[in-house]
């Protein structure tokens, strides 16, 4: 049923809006991921199946609305809305800390919505707004120093960092930090500034590895797995980090079969450990194919339509970078790296808020790709 529904949604979008073939590729990959997600979730009762369909319907509705706004209107570029978005994101983080309940050690919810999803929807607009500001002045008056728009972007990202640290949401902090770093390196031309920034990032990484407890624990496990098993405090964590390596021979090329993974080691099986589930339940081949598809998806999201302006270019770039880093962090944490866990795989992981966020980023990209095509078609008709 989900296959039919999702395929129908894809075909409908192709017919109604007549998008170019390029938009279709990404939608097809996203639908494939949704189908893989349906296979991984093992929904057993009617209530869970109804919830799943509700999420899918919500995603389709949100996609249509956002696509329409981006493709046919200029509302998303209104300065007041962008400034409101910039102001609201730190407030969401503070609100989550003050009013939210702790879940797995982090304050992740704000009235039912995951803070991770809300912040990552708003951040591309904030970054695009800063980058599209006219770069006419520099701090200290020298071109070798930072321009005001880059300082604005970094300062704003730092404010969000503090909010993420307060909420204990380090996955969000990593995604924001890596996205801001790439945007900074793309825009900044001064080699001296880039070196200073890189050294500051390395110091920050060192401090995070030393003082953030679960990153520090995972690094200790990674550096000396045998000692970690003997340590009472690390043994439980070591089990989930190293399970794949310890059991890969038993799993083999074709997997162990559906439902074999112990829930005691992986309580968040259908959200944070998708790759492990695919390798164990289905086969290494399917996990590898899903990873290759995800690379193609990110590559597709990095494409730009002809003659985009600065704001649209950076909006598109940030959306693609956020999606790419989410995938990278998920795969890295599943394969036992010391990076923090707690980030789902796009469209496959169970989680309405995060999948909604990724649908918004997908709709933004499709809207920007189709925008110029439709504008050119309209102006051709008028002439």
């Amino acid at each position, binding site marked *: 049923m989900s296959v039919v529904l999702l395929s129908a949604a894809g075909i409908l979008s192709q017919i109604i809006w007549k998008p170019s073939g390029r938009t279709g590729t990404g939608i*097809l*990959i996203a639908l494939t991921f949704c189908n893989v997600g349906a296979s991984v979730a093992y929904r057993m009762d009617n209530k869970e199946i109804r919830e799943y369909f509700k999420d899918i319907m919500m995603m389709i509705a949100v996609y249509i609305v956002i696509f329409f706004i981006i493709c046919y209107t200029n509302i998303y570029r209104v300065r007041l809305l962008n400034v409101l978005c910039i102001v609201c994101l730190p407030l969401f983080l503070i609100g989550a800390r003050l009013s939210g309940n702790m879940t797995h050690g982090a304050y992740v919810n704000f009235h039912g919505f995951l803070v991770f999803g809300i912040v990552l929807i708003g951040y591309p607009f904030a970054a695009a707004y800063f980058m599209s500001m006219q770069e006419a002045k520099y701090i200290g008056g*020298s*071109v070798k120093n930072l321009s005001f728009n880059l300082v604005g972007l970094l300062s704003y990202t730092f404010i969000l960092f503090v909010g993420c640290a307060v909420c204990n949401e380090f996955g969000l902090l990593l995604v924001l930090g890596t996205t801001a770093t790439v945007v900074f390196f793309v825009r900044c*031309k001064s080699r001296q500034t880039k070196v200073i920034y890189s050294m500051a990032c390395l110091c920050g990484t060192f401090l995070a590895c030393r003082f953030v407890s679960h990153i520090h624990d995972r690094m200790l496990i990674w550096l000396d797995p045998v000692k970690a098993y003997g340590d009472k405090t690390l043994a439980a964590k070591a089990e989930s980090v190293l399970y794949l390596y310890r059991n890969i021979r038993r799993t083999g090329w074709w997997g162990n079969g559906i439902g074999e993974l112990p829930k005691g080691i992986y309580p968040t099986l259908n959200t944070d450990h998708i790759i492990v589930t695919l390798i164990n339940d289905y086969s290494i081949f*399917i996990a590898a*194919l899903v990873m290759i598809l995800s690379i193609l998806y990110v590559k597709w999201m990095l494409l730009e339509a002809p003659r985009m*302006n600065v704001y649209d*270019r950076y909006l598109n770039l940030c959306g693609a970078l956020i999606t790419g880093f989410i995938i990278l962090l998920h795969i890295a944490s599943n394969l036992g790296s010391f990076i923090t866990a707690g980030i789902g795989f796009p469209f496959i992981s169970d989680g309405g808020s995060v999948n909604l966020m990724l649908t918004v980023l997908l709709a933004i990209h499709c809207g920007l790709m189709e925008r110029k095509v439709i504008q050119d078609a309209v102006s051709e008709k008028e002439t």
Partner: protein
Amino acid sequence: MLVVILQMSTIASLTILVILIHRVERRREICPEESEEKYWIMQTQRIGRAEKTPRHYMRRKNLENRTELAEDGYLVGNAITDDIFLDTSQKKVRMYMNVQKNRIFLTVLKGKVMIQNHVCYANDKKVIEIGDSSGIIVDDIRLRFIKKGMV
């Protein structure tokens, strides 16, 4: 047996999908230069150097080139790592060009450049505004900036 068949067919269909998507996308790749909206045209012409050096005699005069500029920052110079490479005879020259929709701002970072008959030496704090049809001479190359649509 059925489980094995289903598993194999899933793997096969996913493989075919990945290969198809990859092949289709490779054929549709757009050249990156076309993806930005261009506001300015930079026209360059080799005009010859005041001092005659051996290298000068090996270069052809009056060679012209045009490039379109989008709203961005560019490093212009005679180093290979610069965004826009000028094949000049001078030792080292580098400028930071801040291209905006209606204006261009130049800063000379290395060497010397002649901007509207004034010689400008390296000064990373000095930002010079360039207008439409302005001329700059970098050693033996003349650069002219024309607003797109005004050609």
